[in-house]
C-alpha cells in the first residue's frame, strides 16, 4: 500500500489557521477599508556577540538590539472627520495635522501638517492600533481572533496612488512607539507591541 506524504497538517489547523485580510482598528473603532490585506513586521534586529575565533553564531550570545514593529497596508478611504476616529482619518494618516483656515484654499477645510522641527507631543500619537485577524474557529476557547496591538503608534509613511476606474490606493506604514508611561511597557527594552488572542473584538 502506498504511503501518504509527510505533512505538517494537524487536527488543530482548522482552529489555529488565521483567515482573511485582517481589519485595522484604532481602539474599538474600525479605521477603514483596506485592499490587499494587512501586514505586520516585528522589525527585530538581533546581534550575536562577536569574538576572535568565532566560526558561527553562538547560542546564548544573542540579544535584541532594535525593534521597529510595523503594520502596513493600503487603505482606500480618507475622511476629514477629526471628531472621532473613523474612516481613514486625515490627521491619523498625516500625524497631528490640524485644520487651519489661514493660508487655506478658499472654501476648503484645510489640514496643515505639523511643522517640521517640532517634537511631536503625546497627543499626536495614536493609541491602541490593532491589526486583527480571524481564526478558523469562532468558538475556540483560546480566542476567535488574533491581534497585533501597538499601544502607541505613528503613521510614518504614506502615499496616495490614483488609477483610472479604481479606488485611490493610500499605502500606509504604521510604526509602534514605546510609551514608557504605560503599565507593562515601562522598561526601555520592552517591546512596543503585543500579540494577543481575543474571544471578542
Amino acid at each position, binding site marked *: 500500500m502506498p504511503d*501518504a506524504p509527510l*505533512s505538517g*497538517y*494537524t487536527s488543530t*489547523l*482548522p482552529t489555529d489557521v488565521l483567515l482573511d485580510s485582517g481589519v485595522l482598528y484604532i481602539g474599538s473603532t474600525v479605521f477603514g477599508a483596506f485592499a490587499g490585506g494587512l501586514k505586520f513586521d516585528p522589525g527585530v534586529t538581533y546581534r550575536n556577540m562577536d569574538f576572535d575565533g568565532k566560526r558561527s553564531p553562538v547560542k546564548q550570545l544573542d540579544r535584541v538590539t532594535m525593534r521597529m514593529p510595523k503594520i502596513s497596508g493600503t487603505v482606500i478611504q480618507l475622511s476629514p472627520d477629526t471628531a472621532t476616529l473613523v474612516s481613514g482619518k486625515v490627521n491619523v494618516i498625516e500625524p497631528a495635522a490640524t485644520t487651519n483656515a489661514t493660508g487655506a484654499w478658499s472654501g476648503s477645510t484645510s489640514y496643515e501638517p505639523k511643522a517640521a522641527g517640532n517634537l511631536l507631543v503625546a497627543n499626536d500619537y495614536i493609541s491602541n492600533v490593532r491589526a486583527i485577524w480571524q481564526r*478558523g*474557529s*469562532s468558538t475556540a476557547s483560546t480566542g476567535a481572533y488574533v491581534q497585533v496591538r501597538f499601544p502607541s503608534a505613528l503613521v510614518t509613511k504614506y502615499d496616495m496612488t490614483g488609477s483610472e476606474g479604481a479606488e485611490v490606493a493610500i499605502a500606509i506604514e504604521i510604526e509602534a512607539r514605546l510609551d514608557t508611561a504605560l503599565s507593562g511597557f515601562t522598561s526601555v527594552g520592552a517591546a512596543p507591541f503585543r500579540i494577543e488572542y481575543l474571544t471578542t473584538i
Partner: protein
Amino acid sequence: MSKPRFATQGSIQTPSTASTVQIYSTIRKGLIDYVSSDNQRLAQFVNDRIYVRSQPEPVLFPYITLLLNRTSLSAYNGYRETALLEVQCLGKPESQLPLVETAMDIVDQCLTAYTDARSGLTVGRSRTRNTIPMFSDPADASVVGVIATYEFFIWPRVLTVRTN
C-alpha cells in the same frame, strides 16, 4: 416518480467533511439554516428544495441545485482543496424571477462569508453570478434562473484523515 438520490434523509451526519456526500450535506444544511441580514431564510423561497446535481421529478419551482468541482494541489501535499460550487436556482413561470433572484441573494450572503471549522475547514469568500438569458425554442422560455459559482478552500477530513 422520484429519481433515486445518492444520500437518503437521515443517513448522514453534519457538519462533516469526511466524505463528498457529507460535504454536500453540510453546505446544504448551512444554506437551509442561514438567516439573512433582513431575517429571511431560503425556506421562504424554495422550502427544502435544494438538491445535488439535479432535481427530482416532478419538480416544484423554484428549486436549487448544487454541483461541486474540487481541485487539490501538490503545494499542500494534496490535503487542501480549492472548490467551485455551482449553485443554480431555477423558477417557472417567468414571474418567479424576483423569487429566484432574492433566494440567490440569501445564498450569496451565506456562501461569501462561509467559515466552518467544525470538521476540517471550509472557507468561502467569493463568487461569480449570472442571470440566465431567456431560453428560446426548443427550450422552455418560461424558465428563469440564476447560476452562481462560489469559490471555496477546504481542508476536508476525507483527505486530511490520512495524516492521523
